């Protein structure tokens, strides 16, 4: 059975955010075994912020991502293993090492306006014989025309596919549709969509993208991922199959993986709480969520206020340090307001 598009499951990369980068080798092996047997063609494995992401700023990996990658490569019988890397966080040596371990797909991610920091990394991945993807994060922040310019840059560097990435889960169905359509009608390479579920639209946006001819779609099993979570792989597969669109994945098998292997890791995955919704509503980078909740507790301020201020500052992916900056400032403002109230009395 030929699939109508190619599915990449990012549970073991984007899902790393939801678990504060605590994946173990056993968990990675179990997820890869299940997804591979269910027919998922590409499985992404990296720190949530890509190769080299283990840090104070984003959270240290419990297990070295290279060890996780090696385990994934060993388990996969059919699926290709993909890695993500963000220039500025990871370096070329990380890609070389990932290729040596056996990763076959390199996804090079930049903020949607900064594609021109990626040419060396895309060229290197091609040289290493990897399939390459240009991954334009926070694509909701610019319109389809401007996004196309950046996508053309990615294509010119040699990307085999360029992704519209809704990192904040901020896109409406129309937003996703127009961006995918613009890229599809103007690029020679493939086009992909990576959706988040903050507005409960990840599956709908992926189906709209399919109608516009999208070639690759991302999911995460149970939606395990940054912010309110990603497009849930098992729901995406079920919805497409019911619509008569072949995914190449066994719906019942992937539902079992979701329920038995991934769900236990994060039982409440799929609940969109106020902060998760707020990210999508205000267009804020999804992986800020847990960091903001932690900072709110540490500094005694409201996570909602942190997130809204980050939105006002137009902070981009990777600027997790600004969460501490904002929390410290809110704490100071609160103390000042308290002092003034005491004085007034």
């Amino acid at each position, binding site marked *: 059975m030929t699939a109508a598009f190619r599915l990449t499951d990012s549970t073991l990369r984007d899902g790393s955010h939801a678990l504060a980068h605590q994946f173990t080798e056993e968990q990675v092996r179990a997820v890869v075994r299940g997804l591979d047997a269910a027919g998922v063609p590409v499985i992404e494995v990296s720190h949530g912020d890509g190769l080299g992401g283990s840090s104070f700023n984003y959270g240290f990996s419990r297990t070295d991502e290279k060890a996780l990658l090696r385990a994934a490569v060993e388990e996969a019988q059919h699926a290709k293993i993909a890695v993500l890397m963000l220039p500025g966080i990871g370096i070329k040596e990380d890609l070389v090492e990932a290729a040596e371990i056996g990763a076959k797909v390199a996804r090079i991610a930049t903020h949607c306006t*900064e594609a021109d920091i990626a040419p060396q990394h895309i060229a290197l991945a091609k040289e290493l014989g990897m399939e390459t993807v240009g991954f334009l994060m926070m694509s909701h922040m610019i319109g389809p025309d401007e996004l196309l310019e950046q996508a053309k840059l990615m294509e010119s560097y040699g990307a085999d596919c360029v992704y519209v990435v809704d990192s904040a889960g901020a896109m409406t169905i129309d937003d996703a549709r127009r961006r995918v359509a613009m890229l599809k009608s103007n690029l020679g390479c493939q086009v992909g969509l990576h959706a988040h579920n903050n507005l409960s639209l990840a599956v709908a946006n992926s189906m709209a993208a399919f109608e516009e001819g999208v070639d690759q779609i991302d999911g995460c099993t149970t939606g395990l991922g940054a912010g309110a979570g990603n497009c849930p792989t098992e729901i995406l597969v079920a919805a497409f199959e019911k619509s008569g669109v072949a995914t190449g994945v066994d719906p019942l098998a992937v539902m079992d993986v979701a329920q038995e292997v991934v769900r236990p890791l994060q039982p409440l995955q799929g609940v969109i709480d106020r902060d998760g919704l707020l990210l999508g509503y205000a267009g804020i980078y999804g992986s800020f969520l847990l960091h903001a909740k932690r900072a709110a507790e540490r500094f005694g301020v409201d996570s909602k206020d942190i997130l809204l201020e980050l939105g006002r500052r137009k902070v981009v992916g990777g600027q997790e340090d600004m969460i501490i900056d904002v929390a410290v400032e809110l704490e100071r403002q609160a103390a000042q307001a308290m002092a003034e109230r005491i004085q007034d009395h």
Partner: protein
Amino acid sequence: MSDTIRGAIVGSGNIGTDLMYKLRRSDVIELGAVIGIDPESDGLAKARELGIATSAEGADWLLERADQFGIVFEATTASVHRAYAPKYAAAGLKAVDLTPAKVGPNVVPTVNIDVALDRPNVNMITCGGQATTPIVAAVKAVAEVPYAEIVSTVASVSAGPGTRQNIDEFTKTTSKALEEVGGAGIGKAIMILNPADPPIIMRNTVFCALGDGYDEATVSKSILDMVEQVREYVPGYRLKSDPVFDTGPFHTPGGSVPARVIALLEVEGAADYFPPYAGNLDIMTAAATRVGEAMARHMLGGGR
């Protein structure tokens, strides 16, 4: 005997032009020439306006009259500097290198300026390195720092094509400087470009892992003192808040530690050639001026 040393800037792009304004104010360096390769460049036009000798014939022009100069400030590219560094040295010119070529040792004015005195060539690391290694060194002076990490965020419009195409050079060079100059056991640097309009002021966050036995007040004071020292040449360098201490344990690449300290820094530029948001470019040229001046004083027979 003259009381100044003649300097030349090679490279008439953004960095070279900003440096020109700073060197003109120096009392120990006389800026003798600005050298580019494009006669139409804005930098050379600005130099001509200011009555400074210019050439569009590149570094060879300088080598032909090397005896008239003492210090060359390289603001071209790493490959140009690698090619010319031996020629400058052979011609008796000292070099302050603002490219990532790293021919000579890394230097940060407030940490190890003495290395600049006797070496023929020193490297200014990166903008993020100039902004963050002083803080790591300040913490290291009073505590164990088995791991240090920095996040440097600059406005997209202030990152030129050289930086963009060589972003790995930034992260690797800066990481190394955190170790070699800052004194951290292991260093890691992260660079982020932010396209917000109006452009954001350069931001740097420094995380230092703290080994056992540190004293919060001592660490804080050391950081605050260092900030004051950097402010002597970059007035827009400031802490956004007092240093933040977090207790762990944290399992870092340098080992497990009980705590960390975070310094949140903002660098506003002096707006000599770039707008104030480009503190990243300002701190490079201001630091290079400091280093050049120390070299010049030493050459003139003074201390530094």
